[in-house]
């Protein structure tokens, strides 16, 4: 299955991309996606510990299961206001 990953702020700049399609085994969780990202994009590793993950625009847990077509956003510490 494929999910769409979105990156913002410092992570977007480090990666120099705003989004990408990622191929995952069926039934993969948020944690598995995070592990994959850490492995394939070492430049993002330092951000991942403080980053939340949102699936389809809602904050998700590491054990949340992903589905084909999901929009998965990496949300570094927010700074609104």
């Amino acid at each position, binding site marked *: 299955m494929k999910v769409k990953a979105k990156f913002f702020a410092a992570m977007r700049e480090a990666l120099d991309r705003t989004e990408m399609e990622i191929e995952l085994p069926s039934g993969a969780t948020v944690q598995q996606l995070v592990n994959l990202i850490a492995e394939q994009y070492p430049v993002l590793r330092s951000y991942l510990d403080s980053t939340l993950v*949102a699936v389809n625009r809602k904050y998700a847990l590491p054990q949340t299961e992903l589905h084909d077509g999901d929009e998965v956003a990496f949300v570094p510490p927010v700074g*609104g206001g």
Partner: protein
Amino acid sequence: MKLFEITTEKLSVDEVVARLADPAIGAISVFVGVVRGDTEGRKVRYLEYEAYPEMAEGMLRQIGDEIQARWKTIHKVSIVHRVGRLEVGEISVVIALSAAHRPELFDALHYAIDRLKEIVPIWKKEVWTDGSEWRSER
């Protein structure tokens, strides 16, 4: 008119306050965020705000819902956050709450700005005269 919005346009407090218009209200409290000219001693040239707008508007709406669940006297909530490049002195966010009378307006406004800084996917890059950095409070 949207009560919860991420926009690249300049913000007007009057325009946001007008979104709450209703003959039943007598008091409005407003928080206005403004771009400060310095931070921790460094001179700011400008700020760059970035959002995940589709999710951020949903989170702003959630803050409004939380407030109305917690303070029954709050009539309406509107939160509008600007993104993009903002110069010193420009308005970054307007949070406006209305009620028939003033009790509770202040607690609810305080809550709104705290939550905005906690849960809404908006990021701020400070651009100083000698560098830049993405900043958050957590």
